[in-house]
């Protein structure tokens, strides 16, 4: 499995200035990785220890840069969920 699905990557390439909510799965300490992302000017919304992930908000061009970091395992969209009342 690659770091990102082709559709998401294409969306970021086509919309480098648009802001996306993303989940970044990382290797290593979540807090440390969060601090690194914040230093790069990204907004870290959630630090998720159970899955070793960070919920972030960043522009498409920044998401593409994240793919180059060796400690980034996978990036996926932070998708909407809803109450399942009919």
């Amino acid at each position, binding site marked *: *499995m690659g770091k990102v699905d082709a559709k998401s990557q294409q969306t970021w390439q086509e919309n480098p200035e648009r802001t996306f*909510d993303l*989940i970044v*799965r990382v290797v290593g300490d979540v807090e440390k990785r969060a601090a690194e992302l914040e230093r790069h000017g990204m907004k870290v*919304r*959630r630090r*998720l*220890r*159970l*899955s070793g*992930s960070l*919920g972030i908000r960043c522009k498409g061009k920044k998401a593409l840069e994240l793919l180059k970091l060796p400690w980034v395992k*996978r990036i*996926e969209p*932070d*998708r*909407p*969920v*809803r*109450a*399942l*009342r*009919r």
Partner: protein
Amino acid sequence: MGERRGKLSGELVRTLRQSKADSFIPIIVRYREPRRIMRHREPMRGLREGYHYRLRPFAHMHATPEAIKRLEKDPEILEIFEDKPVYAYLDTSVPHIQAPRVWAEGFTGEGVRIAIIDTGIDPDHPDFQGRIAETTDFTGEGPVDHNGHGTHCASTAAGSGAASGGLYRGVAPGATIYSAKVLRSNGEGMMSDVAAGIEWAVDRQVQVISLSLGGQGPCDGTDFLCETCEAAIERGITVCVAAGNDGPSAYTVGSPGCAHNVITVGAANDTDHIASFSSRGPTSDGRVKPDIVLPGVNIIAARAKGTSLGKVIDDYYVALSGTSMATPHAAGICALLLQAEPDLTPLEIKQRLMGTAIDLGEDPYSQGQGRADAWLARHGEPTPAPEPTPPAPSPSPGQGCLPVVVQVLLWGFKRKPPR
């Protein structure tokens, strides 16, 4: 009630008078006997066919007034009725799954910690008095439920029924409730917020998590919310998840309902018919989901103060439908089992619910193993493990009908009908 007109029932005649030309009215059509059940060969404009019943020559449909006129002229059709809502009060659905028989043995879920991760909770509702251990909020709106969904779900799992003199009691009325608000007042949120709620619940060492929420299907169980659920399960927490409301099409179970080891719950009514809206499997990687079904049609349970979601019954209760309503029934059963047998692992609990579920005769992608039952889950008789059946080849997504599947039987418990 209105006056009958030809093949049309009086109530339907009255409804037709008040309906717009483009409105779809739920109807039941009775055909002449004997009749081979088959759908209309050519789709009729203004008609959506639903369930065809097997015991009698009835069919459920939604039809516009114009389509009803055309159906009336069909010589094979004898009568057309309006399909009316029926209500499965908690005082119906809870006995239906035999929870009171487990209470009678002294197990009401007392001391078991259930997390409801949803739209929050009404902390002042009498049905939760003294049993909410902690609440939190990941939406920025505060932990109080301004939507009504979370309160309803919490009371189905663990409400005492105090505001109804005990009538609308939940499945595990002794359980302790933890409420994490991850969905905003409009009932929507983000996966990352749900995952934060799950982490919060794990930190509080809850034993059961109830997730009446999800995203669009299909999925394969590898996204991060599914993995978060799996991580909670690895830490000994049983996770119940709603299958979704995008049925009856196949491949409609969304995340995290597609996670491998969660208990994925579809909805049936209180006469054990699968709800047409209940999402169907398989998952996008070809696995059977849901795992079980439970009552989720017109469930009357606690109403959060100041909310008007669904059909309001009175100040304290409201009727809602959805796999959201079925899921806390499962969470409640888990709590009953855990009080009785605290050492059960999440996978053992899942096997209990699935292995003792009552086969409703529907395909596994609709019913899973069948309708779960609290008493049978507690007292199901062990049987030798059957040889595992090889899984069916993965069908390609986008097919218009449910594929034929091989049902995978679980070891451990013999199904028997409720006494």
